[in-house]
């Protein structure tokens, strides 16, 4: 509401009646003004207080200065109510009168405005004006009267809005010379920095207040491996079977002939064959297969330092049952089966009793025991002997035949073919081992075996006892030696003697002959005769009477053997008629090698060759001329005798070619040829030993000095030509190495407390060399020979040979000297 003095009021009908301003009666639209006295309003106010319509304007009414208040009927609700109250006199006056003036003013304005515009409106407005004027009052037209301007507060606004100069304006006047206006101007560049103060710059500087030291910075790093993909493609070659068939190119015969005859070939051959021949000769001269490296090593090992020489104890065997109070007289290794060794047992006698040996009846059974390495407690086999065996040997051609010489002069043979397999399989500890070898399937053999071994089978079942094998042949007493057989040897298989004494070729290649010697001054040659397998055991055979009764459990091998020696040689010194008592015999041709019988397993199937042998007819055999029939014997009295058994048909020669030497003081207990040199013999007896060379008649090549103890046994080493072992009566073994020392033993080792009775070396394998030593207590010691003792050094053979030859020369020289001396003596005596 723009007019602050206008107050709209609502007049109720009651109020309208009171103040006579009823609508449409007192107050109409045209006549809307009503003057009401102030007092009336105040009275109304008093009477009706709040109900009065003037209540809201009560204050204004009370302050109204005039007497009469104007109330205007507002038909059009111009101010919101049906009546409005005018608060001020001036306004009242204005309304009452200026409605006219206002209308007039409005008219004038409108007229002024719309004078240019349409007159119809004017007329309308005029008509309205007139209407209004007519209704109100007809006022005479008065020209507007200027009234003083009433400030309503807009002066301030105007003032504010008006723009006035705050500062006095400054006037500048710039003048310039006229000619400079519009003149051409040349611009030039000028460096602003040259002129001082031509520019102003604001340089940047490091504001200290804003410097922050970066102490830690979080930086993230990521590593990315460079990955590159690459690929290749290969051709896959799958395996494919491919085969080529070819045959060598060969020239046809004509082509060969042609090329053979070509000149070029001839030239070639002439040029080449010389080279060939040179090469061949070279090979003949020197050993092409000589290994220099190895020889170098050997030199080093033998020359430097003291090699460890010893005999390592390998095993020892003893059996309390059989060997009580007995001693071992002879040791023999089984030639083919590894680890089997046989010992012969006899009564232990003092020396005097031994010397006065006569056949005593022995209460205890004498045996030959077979030991195996794998079972040191139980003997594998026992051979029954009629008497004590002094010496025995395996047959070289058939290791199942064993020949032994007894104390009473008989010669005994055993056949252990049935037990061979057992011996070979003696690896298991022999308790409860049932012999399978005997259970032979072969029916033909069983026929024979009806007679054989019923007692033996009994023995088998008691498995703790080793099987007992009876001898299968024994020589007749009247033809045997009178004294103990002290040495027995098989003759080599390539010759045999006949009764005449000539040696013949032995075609059968089996050892069939034995030679024995005995202190009854005879050397006997025995022939193992043919034995035919009897189809009727008790029939035929005129000789049956002479057949010694054989107990039934003896192999049939030599069943009807009336065994007589083939040849007898009496050793007697022709001039003094003294007889020698040979104790040991050594034949020159005694070298033989044991055949490893491949057919051992076939023995059950095949008959032993001995059964089918017949006396070889001496007609068709060739007489061997170049076999040496020399032999040498060592006697009871300590003499060495060389002799020849070939009987001289020409008996003009009274004295056969014999020589004797008396070096030793006691019985010779060893007479052995060196396994390397056929003419070197080692003889041991009493307190010294001697080495002889056949053909050297002056004396021994080497004779040892008297030693403290007696030498009781000795053997050459099988592998080293200059080494031999000697056993003594104090239980020591002396190892003599001729290349090292010849005046004393190189090494000695104590084996047992009692006297050593026999030594036997053996090569079991390339690495194992054994030495079997038996002592007086009946214990068999098996020792392993160490490498230095068993492996010969390079040229040892040649060295030893050299040594012997030197000794021979020396002997000759000595003899010469002696002869010269004698001559000289003789000369001087003559004078």
């Amino acid at each position, binding site marked *: 509401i723009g007019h602050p003095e206008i107050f709209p009021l609502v007049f109720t009908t009651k109020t309208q009646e009171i103040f006579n301003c009823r609508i449409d009666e007192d107050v109409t639209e045209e006549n809307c003004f009503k003057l009401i006295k102030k007092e009336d309003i105040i009275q109304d106010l008093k009477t009706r207080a709040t109900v009065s319509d003037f209540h809201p304007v009560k204050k204004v009414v009370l302050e109204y200065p005039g007497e009469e208040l104007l109330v205007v009927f507002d038909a059009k609700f111009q101010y919101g109510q049906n009546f409005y109250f005018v608060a001020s006199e001036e306004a009242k006056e204005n309304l009452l009168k200026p409605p006219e003036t206002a209308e007039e003013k409005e008219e004038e304005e409108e007229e002024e405005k719309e004078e240019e515009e349409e007159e119809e409106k004017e007329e309308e407005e005029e008509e309205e004006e007139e209407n209004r004027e007519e209704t109100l009052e007809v006022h005479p037209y008065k020209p507007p009267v200027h009234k003083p301007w009433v400030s309503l507060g807009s002066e301030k606004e105007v003032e504010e809005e008006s723009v006035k100069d705050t500062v006095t304006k400054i006037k500048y006047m710039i003048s310039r010379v006229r000619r400079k206006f519009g003149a051409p101007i040349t611009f030039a560049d000028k460096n602003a920095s040259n002129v001082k103060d031509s520019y102003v710059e604001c340089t940047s500087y490091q504001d200290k207040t804003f410097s922050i030291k970066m102490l830690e910075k979080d930086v993230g790093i990521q590593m990315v491996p460079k990955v590159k993909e690459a690929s290749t493609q290969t051709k896959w070659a799958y395996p494919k079977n491919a085969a080529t068939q070819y045959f060598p190119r060969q020239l046809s015969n004509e082509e060969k002939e042609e090329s053979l005859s070509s000149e070029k070939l001839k030239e070639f051959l002439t040029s*080449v064959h010389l080279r060939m021949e040179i090469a061949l000769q070279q090979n003949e001269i020197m050993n092409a297969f000589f290994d220099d490296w190895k020889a170098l090593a050997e030199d080093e090992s033998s020359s430097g330092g003291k090699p460890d020489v010893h005999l390592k104890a390998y095993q020892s065997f003893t059996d309390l049952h059989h060997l009580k109070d007995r001693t071992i007289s002879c040791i023999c290794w089984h030639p083919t089966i590894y680890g089997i060794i046989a010992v012969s047992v006899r009564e232990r006698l003092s020396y005097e009793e031994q010397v006065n040996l006569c056949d005593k009846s022995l209460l205890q059974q004498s045996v030959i025991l077979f030991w195996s390495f794998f079972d040191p407690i139980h003997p594998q086999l026992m051979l029954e002997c009629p008497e004590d065996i002094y010496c025995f040997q395996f047959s070289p051609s058939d290791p199942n035949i064993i020949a032994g010489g007894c104390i009473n002069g008989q010669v005994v043979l055993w056949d252990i073919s049935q037990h061979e397999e057992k011996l070979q399989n003696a690896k298991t500890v022999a308790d409860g081992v049932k012999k399978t070898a005997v259970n032979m399937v072969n029916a033909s053999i069983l026929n024979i075996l009806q007679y054989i071994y019923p007692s033996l089978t009994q023995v088998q079942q008691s498995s703790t006892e080793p099987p007992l094998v009876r001898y299968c042949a024994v020589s007749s007493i009247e033809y045997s030696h009178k004294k103990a057989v002290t040495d027995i040897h098989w003759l080599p298989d390539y010759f045999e003697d006949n009764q005449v004494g000539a040696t013949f070729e032995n075609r059968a290649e089996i050892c069939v002959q034995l030679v024995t010697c005995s202190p009854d001054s005879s050397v006997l040659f025995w022939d193992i005769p043919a034995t035919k397998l009897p189809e009727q055991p008790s029939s035929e055979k005129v000789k049956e009477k002479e057949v010694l009764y054989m107990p039934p459990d003896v192999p049939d091998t030599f069943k009807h053997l009336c065994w007589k020696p083939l040849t007898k040689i009496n050793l007697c010194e022709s001039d003094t008629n003294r007889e020698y008592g040979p104790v040991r015999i050594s034949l020159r041709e005694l070298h033989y090698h044991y055949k490893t019988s491949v057919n051992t397993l076939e023995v059950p199937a095949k008959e032993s060759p001995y059964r089918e042998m017949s006396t070889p007819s001496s007609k068709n055999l060739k007489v061997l001329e170049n076999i040496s029939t020399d032999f040498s014997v060592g006697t009871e009295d300590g003499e060495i005798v060389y002799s020849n058994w070939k009987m001289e048909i020409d008996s003009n020669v009274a004295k056969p070619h014999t020589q004797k030497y008396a070096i030793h003081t006691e019985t010779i207990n060893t007479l052995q040829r060196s396994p390397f040199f056929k003419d070197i013999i080692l003889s041991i007896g009493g307190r010294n030993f001697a080495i002889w060379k056949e053909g050297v008649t002056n004396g021994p090549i080497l004779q040892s000095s008297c030693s403290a103890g007696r030498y009781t046994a000795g053997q050459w080493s099988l592998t080293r030509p200059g080494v031999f072992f000697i056993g003594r009566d104090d239980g020591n073994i002396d190892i003599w190495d001729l290349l090292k020392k010849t005046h004393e033993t190189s090494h000695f080792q104590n084996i047992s407390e009692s006297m050593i009775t026999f030594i036997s070396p053996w090569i079991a394998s390339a690495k194992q060399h054994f030495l079997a030593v038996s002592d007086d207590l009946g214990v068999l010691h098996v020792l392993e020979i160490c490498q230095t003792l068993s492996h010969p050094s390079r040229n040892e053979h040649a060295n030893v040979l050299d040594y012997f030859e030197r000794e021979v020369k020396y002997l000759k020289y000595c003899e010469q000297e002696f002869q010269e001396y004698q001559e000289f003596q003789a000369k001087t005596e003559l004078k």
Partner: protein
Amino acid sequence: AEVEETLKRIQAHKGVIATIVINAEGIPIRTTLDNSTTVQYAGLLHQLILKTRSAVRDLDPQNDLTFLRIRTKKHEIMVAPGNISIKIIVELYVF
């Protein structure tokens, strides 16, 4: 005839087991062994000779192979190469 004589003489040497003569291509011309063994020897040794000869000549071009001896445990094989043919001898030594 001379050829025969020479070969016989060599074959008669003590210890010689066999003699083979092969031509430049390795085909045996003359032999004292059986055919299959000869062929085997020829094939194997021919290659060896070629190799040996080339090795010798590589080392020194002025040099040439005169003789080749192969000593084995049991035998010794001697090869004398020539231009057109090669002779092979197999020897045995027991020591």
